[in-house]
Structure formats: structure tokens, C-alpha cells
């Protein structure tokens, strides 16, 4: 079975470490916040200028001046800090964020990522994605392994305009956990009940399958 969105978030949450500053993108990455292990201290960075993002507010504590990068109303945790966009991206570009999790359309064996622009479709903009992928050392991309038409999103060469070049090392899809090493995707884990054959069939880019590929346990 392919992983559910929550299972993907749970798997990403296993990469968290105590004391991490983490930036979570929109979509599945946002769900990771629901699965931070008890007793672990993690600070969420929101690139509009908030370090220490909390949960969504109750109806009567909604504040128009308190939003996250998805423009949703949020709260700030005790010990948070709020700052300008330049300061926020200094943290990001300066490599101070320990982990960045974001979605993508495509990733390739050179660690290139395409996540913002589909030619001939409406281009809304890259927001902070290019800064995040260029500035972070530890990035996890979350996406489905293949499109609804069955086209692989794990490629030899990205077909779409890039968000960043050579910056991705870890990819979690609904089928597998893969790491990019020496110009290939290395299959590290597979979703429960998903065969290696299925993953091979849905991976267009060069894939290395080690002798033993454990199933994820949930």
C-alpha cells in the first residue's frame, strides 16, 4: 500500500532531532508538525518572519497580524521570536535551519528539484522555495512517486524549470524513502507491502536497489 499523507508525515518526523529548527513547506510537510515526538523540542520556522510557530488559534484568539507563510492564522509558542523577512531569509540562506521539508513536481539523480513552474500553465511564483533549497543542507522532499498518469517524478534529468540545482539528497514518496548518492537514487526503505518491482517501474531515473530494503513500520 502506498503511504497515506499522515504516514508520510510520520516517516518524515522520524528524521527530527531534539533541538532542531525546522522549516515546513505547504501540504504534507505541514502535517509533520502533528507528529513531533513527545518530549522532543523542535522550533518551527515560518519564512514570513516567525521562529517558534504554534498551533492554529482558537476562534476568539484569531489575530490578523499573526500568520504563517501559507497566510493562515497561527499562534506563536512561548519563547518564539518574530522578525523581518530579511532576517528570516538570513536564517535560511545562512544555513541556520537544521531541516527543511518541502514538496516538488520532480527530482532528478543530480539532486536537482523542480517545484514551482509548469510551462504554459499559470505561474504563481516561487515564493521562498528557491531560497530554502539553496540555503539548507538538510532537505527532505515529499511527493508522490508518480503522477496520476503514472509518469515518474524521479528522473534522470528534471524536465521542468528548476527551483534549485544539486541541492536535494533525501526524497520521501508515497512508495519509498530514497537518498541521492553519486548520480543515482538509492532505495533505502519501501512502504509496507510495496514491491521493489513497483518502485523500479515507477522510477525513471537511475535506481540502485541494495540487497536488503526494509519495509517501513507504522
Amino acid at each position, binding site marked *: 500500500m502506498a503511504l497515506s499523507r499522515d504516514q508520510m508525515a510520520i516517516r518524515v518526523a522520524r528524521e527530527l532531532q531534539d533541538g532542531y529548527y525546522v522549516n515546513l513547506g505547504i501540504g504534507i510537510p505541514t502535517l509533520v508538525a502533528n507528529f513531533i515526538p513527545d518530549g522532543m523540542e523542535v522550533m518551527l520556522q*515560518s*519564512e*514570513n*518572519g*516567525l521562529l517558534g510557530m504554534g*498551533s*492554529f*488559534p*482558537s*476562534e476568539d484568539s*484569531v*489575530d*490578523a*497580524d*499573526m*500568520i*504563517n507563510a*501559507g*497566510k*493562515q*492564522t*497561527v499562534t*506563536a509558542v512561548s519563547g518564539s521570536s*518574530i*522578525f*523581518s*523577512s*530579511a532576517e*528570516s*531569509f538570513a536564517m*535560511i*540562506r545562512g544555513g541556520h535551519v537544521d531541516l527543511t521539508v518541502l514538496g516538488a513536481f520532480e527530482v532528478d539523480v543530480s539532486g*536537482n528539484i523542480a517545484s514551482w*513552474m509548469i510551462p504554459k500553465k*499559470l*505561474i*504563481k*511564483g*516561487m*515564493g*521562498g*522555495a*528557491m*531560497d530554502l533549497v*539553496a*540555503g539548507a543542507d538538510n532537505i527532505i522532499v515529499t511527493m508522490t512517486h508518480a503522477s496520476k498518469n503514472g509518469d515518474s517524478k524521479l528522473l534522470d534529468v528534471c524536465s521542468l*524549470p*528548476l*527551483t*534549485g*540545482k*544539486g541541492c536535494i539528497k533525501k526524497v520521501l514518496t508515497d512508495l519509498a524513502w530514497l537518498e541521492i548518492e553519486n548520480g543515482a537514487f538509492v532505495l533505502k526503505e519501501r512502504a509496507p507491502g510495496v514491491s521493489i518491482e513497483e518502485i523500479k517501474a515507477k522510477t525513471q531515473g537511475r535506481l540502485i536497489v541494495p540487497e536488503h530494503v526494509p519495509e517501513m513500520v507504522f
Partner: protein
Amino acid sequence: MAGFNKVVTTYEDAMSGLQDGMTVIAGGFGLCGIPENLIAEIKRLKTKNLTVVSNNCGVDGFGLGILLEDKQVSKMVSSYVGENALFEKQVLNGELDVELTPQGTLAEKMRAGGAGIPGFYTATGVGTPVAEGKDTRFFNGREYLLEEAITGDFAIVKGWKADRYGNVIYRHTAQNFNPMAATAGKITVVEVEELVEVGELDPAHIHTPGIYVDRVIVGTFEKRIENRTTSE
């Protein structure tokens, strides 16, 4: 003698001198911390052919989106413009030019502009469409792009509290791009919720020192919420 007194009492005075073809830098992220009354004044003035530098372009009918209604904007420099149907239409018609700029690069362009730094190198955008036509250089084996600073004829800024000297503080995440915008305007106009006495703001807690600010006006704000999300 006005001395350091930056206070103006009408929006007409606040935006006095704005002319067709000027560049306006605006603070705000989405609809949070936007100078909504200064934007409304630009609409009233019917100034045309503006270049507007702002992370986003409002929504239909609110924020910078209202400047599109009478086609006052000829170019937007933004990182994300997805919330606006009129925007999309004008871009597709070729009436509106868009320069999409990574969010951190945009913030840094404003910061650099205000700080007298004409350009800077960044890894953001290397190998992407953003890099087209730009100089690159290697530092310590990594490739970086040369990005140029931005300054504006006007900067329009939304603060929380200011004193008459133009010292400003921002409220919560309504800070966002406002402090950089404030530094980068030839004329910087700040609208605030509250004017306080000189000396009332803790000098160490001032976000925008008055040296950057030319005009201060007190307004009332709708503060529309773009994406109201609650825990209930």
C-alpha cells in the same frame, strides 16, 4: 519649523509627489501588514504606469489588487502572485509585466537598496530561470548569482506604533517586508495604528529608526484575513 516632526494628517499629504511611472515599494506579506490606506490613496490619485515592488499583489478588491482595477500598475516585482484573478488576466493580456523574484532575494534587494549596497551574490536561483542573463561567480567552489538592489521613489509601510520622529514598531508577523521597504524609499511613508509620544517607545526596541522615515500618518485598518484557520 517641522524639525523631526514627520506627522502628516491627510492621506493627500502622505502621498504627495507620487507621479506616473514611479517605483513604489510596499511592505506586507499577503494581506498581513499592508499599508491599506496608502494603497487606497494611490488608487484615488489614479497614478499610472507604476512599478510596484511587493512580495504579493493583494487579492481581487483588496490590498494592491485594487490598483489593477484601473490598470495603474505596469510592472510587479513579487515572489508569489497566485491569489488574484484580475492579475492573471492582465498578465495574460500583456498589460502587466511581472518579475518573479525569490522571496529572500526580494527582501535582500530591498535591504541592500536601503543600505547603499548596489548588488549582492546569492546561491538562490542558480541553475533556474531566475539566473537567466545574470552574472555568476564562484566563491569557495560554489556558484552564486549577482542580484541587484532595489530602491523606490516611494516606500509605503504599515507600522503598529510610531512617534512623531518617525520611529516605528511593528506588530507580530505584520512586520515582514515593512522594515526593509522603509529603508529603500526616496520618500518613505509609514501609516500606523497609533501615534505615541516621543520617548514612549523603548529605544532598544524600535524596529525602524526615524532616520528612514519621511512621513507618518495615523489610519484605521480593516486588516482582512486571507486564510482564517482555527484549531476548532
